[in-house]
């Protein structure tokens, strides 16, 4: 299953995207909502184009919500009626209920989009991430991967030497085997970014689950988990990662992400635990307990919304940390090297002494700048995430 990221763009996907845009598009046109209609078409087409059926379906749901939120709000929804409370009919059919839910979803999407644009630094970071996404998904349509070595007798047409600096034909120059650096940049980010994101997700899930367990159950569970996290925090993590990376053989990068998660969860887990402890005592949580609203309500409506901003921002920092650790592992030559990969480009730069060859700077500088830009975008993007997920910073439409 190719969910979103990591899939390459296909023309079938574009077709799927356009098909997916038809229902919300029709609805929008019927209600003469031309701007949302245009947005819908663009979003669905892009979603389908970049990620196939899943991207298209996701965009279909989201954009339907947006269009419905424009068209139906304040008219069909009894809860926003300004009439006296006695005159309002609170019974609603399933159809009306789902419409109301869709409109609520659409409003959330719109509010998030506004919050995203409002913070300039955060939006800049978002644009940076979009740039990398576009490069990885759509880049392969225009640039062919140059994996075979080209030695002196069969240099690429137009190339003069190995280690060529940037030129018109090769914007980022040629590497140690006379290969196009640009193609390695375009193809080399996918695995690194995907593994980092996986590692970040897994770390966050482990930390949140264990942290809320320790916070909610307390007692022996809490003590055991705290002792375990203290223990892991004492061992120097990166060297341990290097040691463990030697034990486990990697045919799959997901294992590497899992290993990272196993070592890096304690910091976030401690924060989550402390938060749960403090939230447990708040009045509104106590009120919800007194009203007997049930554990799911407690967790998802009272406790989680207060932590989600912190958790999401931390996840981004974990992704950043994971990328740091991954590149570090490859840089030291501690995990099997597999091209194309930005980290491997740096590794080769180190082992082939490219670093001291002024002509070869491009093959080393390109991945370095790519990684730095990606990480910078991540850090900047957290500003917007804070605005999106923190209910206190969020403003109405």
């Amino acid at each position, binding site marked *: 299953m190719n969910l979103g990221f990591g899939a390459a763009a296909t023309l079938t996907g574009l077709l799927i995207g356009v098909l997916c845009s038809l229902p919300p598009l029709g609805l929008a046109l019927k209600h003469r909502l031309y701007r949302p209609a245009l947005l819908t078409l663009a979003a669905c087409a892009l979603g389908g184009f970049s990620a196939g059926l899943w991207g298209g379906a996701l965009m279909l749901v989201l954009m339907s919500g947006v269009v419905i939120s424009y068209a139906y709000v304040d008219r069909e929804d009894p809860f926003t009626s300004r009439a006296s409370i006695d005159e309002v009919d609170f019974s609603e059919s399933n159809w009306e209920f789902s419409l109301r839910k869709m409109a609520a979803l659409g409003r959330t999407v719109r509010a998030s989009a506004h919050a995203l644009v409002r913070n300039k630094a955060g939006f800049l970071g978002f644009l940076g991430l979009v740039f990398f996404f576009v490069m990885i998904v759509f880049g392969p349509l225009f640039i062919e991967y140059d994996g075979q070595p080209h030695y002196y007798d069969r240099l690429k047409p137009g190339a003069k030497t190995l280690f060529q600096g940037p030129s018109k034909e090769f914007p980022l120059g040629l590497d140690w085997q006379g290969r196009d650096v640009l193609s390695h940049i375009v193809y080399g980010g996918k695995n690194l970014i995907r593994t980092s994101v996986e590692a970040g997700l897994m770390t966050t899930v482990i930390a949140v689950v264990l942290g809320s367990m320790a916070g909610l159950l307390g007692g022996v569970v809490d003590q055991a988990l705290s002792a375990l996290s203290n223990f892991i925090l*004492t061992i*120097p993590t990166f*060297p341990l990662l290097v040691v463990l990376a030697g034990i486990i053989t990697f045919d799959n990068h997901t294992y590497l992400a899992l290993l990272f998660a196993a070592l890096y969860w304690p910091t976030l887990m401690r924060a989550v635990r402390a938060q749960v402890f403090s939230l447990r005592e708040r009045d509104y949580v106590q009120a919800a307990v007194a009203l007997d609203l049930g554990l799911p309500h407690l967790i998802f409506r009272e406790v989680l919304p207060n932590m989600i901003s912190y958790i999401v921002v931390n996840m981004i920092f974990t992704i950043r940390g994971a990328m740091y650790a991954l590149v570090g592992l490859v840089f030291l030559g501690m995990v099997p090297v597999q091209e194309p990969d930005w980290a491997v480009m740096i590794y080769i730069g180190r082992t082939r002494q490219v670093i001291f060859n002024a002509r070869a700077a491009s093959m080393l500088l390109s991945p370095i700048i790519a990684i730095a830009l990606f990480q910078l975008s991540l850090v900047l993007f957290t500003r917007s995430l804070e605005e999106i997920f923190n209910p206190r910073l969020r403003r109405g439409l």
Partner: protein
Amino acid sequence: MWRSYAFRVTVQGLLTLWAVTTFTFVMIRKMPGNPVEVVIDQLIDRQQLSYEEARQQAAGLFDFDPGQPLIEQYADYMNKLLHGDMGKSISSAGTPVANQIKRYLPWTLFSVGSGLIISFTLGVLLGMAMAYWRGSVFDNVLTAAASLMYGIPDFIIALLLLLVAGVQLKLFSMEDVLGGVGQDVHAGLNLPYLKSVVQHAALPVITYVWGTVGGWILTMKSSTISTLGEDYIMVAKARGLPERRILTAYVGRNAMLPLVTRLAISIGFVVGGSVIIEFIFQYPGLGRQLAMAIGTRDYTTMQGIFLVIASAVVFSNILADLLFGMLDPRVRVGGEE
């Protein structure tokens, strides 16, 4: 009260160290290959020996038997460790691990330590100034700069320093900055030696400062801003105290509280240094030594370095606890509540 606290902390610390030692002991021996095999491979590679010849030669180099059962090795090791002996390095046969640590630790302490001090001082001063003049051009520019510095990983900075400043702009030659000290100076308390040490430490220190100062600035700024909003600052102003006195005695001391604990915890990580940074600059510190020990599967050296780093972390955590209790009466350890 005090004695029971000290007792509990000591026991906890020792238990943690034992657990770390045992865990790393098992883990590093589970790594594929062992020190003898690494040398056998090297011999086959370099001297074109057959496997049998290489094995015999290699076996003569070590007083280490990879065939011995793990539990016996463990008992041996723990026994020696309890007598204060960290054993001998396996790869560089005959050298006691303690000597190796004594040799490499000062370099790491010096470079990472001065990086930490510089970055902490800079961060506190700049962060406070930014909070005091918040909203000014100075604040905005520095906030952006701090986020930018914070956003770029330190080994990227290290590579960029070498590549751009060293290779492209030729601001310095490689012999002058790589390694710990120049070849042609004699160790000792003479001027050329000290100059060479500082010169070689400059790039790693710049890298450490660059990588961490952003975090200090941002933390200090937010801490100062929240302190400035406290009632006692208002009271101090109402009493007509001079601005400078408010800034140093009332704002500065309180705003630095959370940072001091963080500083104490960071001290623990000074010892570990930074494996990658020391690797890039070929700096003869403990981190690089650890990476090399992992590469050659030098079990005892790895073990020793892990132990030293873990002790430093345990110790600095205790220090942070105590410091926080001492500096902030509100959370004094073993207080009335």
